[in-house]
């Protein structure tokens, strides 16, 4: 499958100085709602990055499928008879109709409702009607469904990459895997998705969610003040910026993570003992396991639009907190709109009662009805609105991402941090967000930004 490189749309001129702007902590507001940016992102970012598409536990059996977007293109993610996962373009090779019109289910074949071309679940063309009368020379083997040239499965997470020349997933993730392993590989069974994902529309750009999960710790006190007031989260987990609990890691091979911890305590994001006893120290390095043990909150984004949040919280101040993991994708739907997809996970070994409890707590905080998320998505559309103003265009308005930059802060990065990336023992900073935009700019403005050396 060829990804057209040459048809890239124009790079908007306001990106020309963004590299220098970023060094000063400035980001042009227009990138949050701009047609040219959006078109370029679909081609240079979503068609060339490793994009999260599904979790293994959503597809336990052969024939299980889900339909998911990559950028704005429709794909089917299906488990084949051999157990392998196929990522197929949801478009009939005959005349382009969508061959799969359900969002999930189980099937033995995908048969086009237009003229009846029928495909096996691995994407091969199995048959066409009236073959002897009309298609005597049709080579079925040449007309299978288009598929993503690269699919990778890591710790239950399935990613696809539409770039035939993409670097391997391991190389794409780089040293950030050190942090991902802590979330996804702590117990032998790994993490398991509970139920079907939430899907909802927000009139904000996809980057708004992606950057938020890179470590926008200082918004918690204001955006989420109502949730803090009702006492459903520990002060250390969501409280004011502090040296004691906050840790921001930036420039970890292009990615960032925000950590809240309580050194000396056994926390594991408030998972109860019936769950934590399955956490296996031999699966991680001692430093990784020690970090998991003292952690209250971890949140990060694997560029471009896959984010995770691991935390313990409750849905009622009279009940104890419960740990859970949410993963989400911020799917672009035009320049000023996104669809959020949200999954809630627990370790596979957790008892069923705990899974249900963790789901309730996750839903109550981070979902369309979540007491935290409700207020995020209320604020974000404002930025998309500002981005589309004539005023922003005429004045090349730039936003302030300077928190904690250089001499703005007197807190130096840790010299002895045991993990990868640059770790700052403070969450009064926006270094993770600056990392996100550095990565974004690099991939937007270099025509072949993450090409394999072997090419």
């Amino acid at each position: 499958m060829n990804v057209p490189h040459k048809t890239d749309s124009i790079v908007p001129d306001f990106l020309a100085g963004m590299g220098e702007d970023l060094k000063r902590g400035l980001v042009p507001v227009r990138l949050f709602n701009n047609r040219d940016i959006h078109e370029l992102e679909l081609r240079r970012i979503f068609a060339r990055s490793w994009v999260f598409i599904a979790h293994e536990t959503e597809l336990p059996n052969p024939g299980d499928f889900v339909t998911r977007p990559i950028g704005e293109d429709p794909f089917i993610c299906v488990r084949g008879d051999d157990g392998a996962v196929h990522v197929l373009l949801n478009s009939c090779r005959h005349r382009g109709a969508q061959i799969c019109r359900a969002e999930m289910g189980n099937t033995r074949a995908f048969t086009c409702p237009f003229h009846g071309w029928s495909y096996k679940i691995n994407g091969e063309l199995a048959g066409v009607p009236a073959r002897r009368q009309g298609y005597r020379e049709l080579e079925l083997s040449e007309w299978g469904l288009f598929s993503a040239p690269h699919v990778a499965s890591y710790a239950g997470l399935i990613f696809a990459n539409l770039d035939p020349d993409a670097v391997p997933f391991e190389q794409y993730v780089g040293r950030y895997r050190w942090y991902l392993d802590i979330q996804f590989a702590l117990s032998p069974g790994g993490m398991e998705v509970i139920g079907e994902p939430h899907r909802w529309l927000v009139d904000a750009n996809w980057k708004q969610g992606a950057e938020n999960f890179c470590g926008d710790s200082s918004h918690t006190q204001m955006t989420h003040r109502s949730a803090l007031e009702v006492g459903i989260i520990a002060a250390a987990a969501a409280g004011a910026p502090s040296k004691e609990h906050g840790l921001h890691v930036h420039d970890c091979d292009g990615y960032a993570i925000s950590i809240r911890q309580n050194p000396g305590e056994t926390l594991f994001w408030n998972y109860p003992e019936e769950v934590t006893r399955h956490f296996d120290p031999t699966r991680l390095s001692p430093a990784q396991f020690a970090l998991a043990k003292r952690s209250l909150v971890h949140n990060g984004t694997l560029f471009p639009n896959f984010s995770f949040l691991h935390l313990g919280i409750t849905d009622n101040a009279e009940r104890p907190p419960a740990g859970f993991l949410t993963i989400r994708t911020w799917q672009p739907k035009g320049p000023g709109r996104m669809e959020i997809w949200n999954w809630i996970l627990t370790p596979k070994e957790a008892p069923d009662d705990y899974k249900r409890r963790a789901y309730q707590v996750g839903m109550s905080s981070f979902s369309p009805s979540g007491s935290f998320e409700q207020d995020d998505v209320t604020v974000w559309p404002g930025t998309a609105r500002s981005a589309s103003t004539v005023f922003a265009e005429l004045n090349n308005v730039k936003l302030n991402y300077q928190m904690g930059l250089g001499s703005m802060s007197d807190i130096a990065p840790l010299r002895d941090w045991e993990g990868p990336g640059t770790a700052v023992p403070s969450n009064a900073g926006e270094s993770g967000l600056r990392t996100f935009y550095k990565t974004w700019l690099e991939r937007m403005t270099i025509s072949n930004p993450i090409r394999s050396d072997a090419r």
Partner: protein
Amino acid sequence: MNAPFDAGTEAEATRFLNREAELLDNREFHRWLEMVSANIRYRVPVRTTRQNKEGRGFSEKAFFLDEDHGTLKTRVLRLDSEFAWSENPATRTRRIIGNIRVRSATADTVALASNLAIFCYRGDAAAPIILTAERQDILGRENSAWKLADRLVLLDTTVLGMESLSIFL
């Protein structure tokens, strides 16, 4: 539960649903909570588009809301805050309840289904976001007053068209 019911039961149930809608539209959430049983089970399942042979697509594990009295109360307390930005300024809602069907009734419980349309106006948007659903409710009589004991809201949409579900259904 299969005892015969009469027009009086249906009228009482209708009065209950209309009163509830009035309180919710008027944002009198604490008074609404008084109509909710301490043992309430309140669920809004996630829905997915499925082939017809695989059913109607309502999840058994995933929910937009899965509440008991304590969590509903927590949500109401949060909405009391002036910093609950999703509802300050508030969504202006108008609930239309119709097609009320009493499924079964005894002296102390009524099982009923109804159709719900909620028109939601936010900010200066001139057009509403509309949510429609079937409600399946059980009302229980407690100390001579009807209370909402169980609610299952079956949404017609799979993708929520509103940025936050910060209202009660």
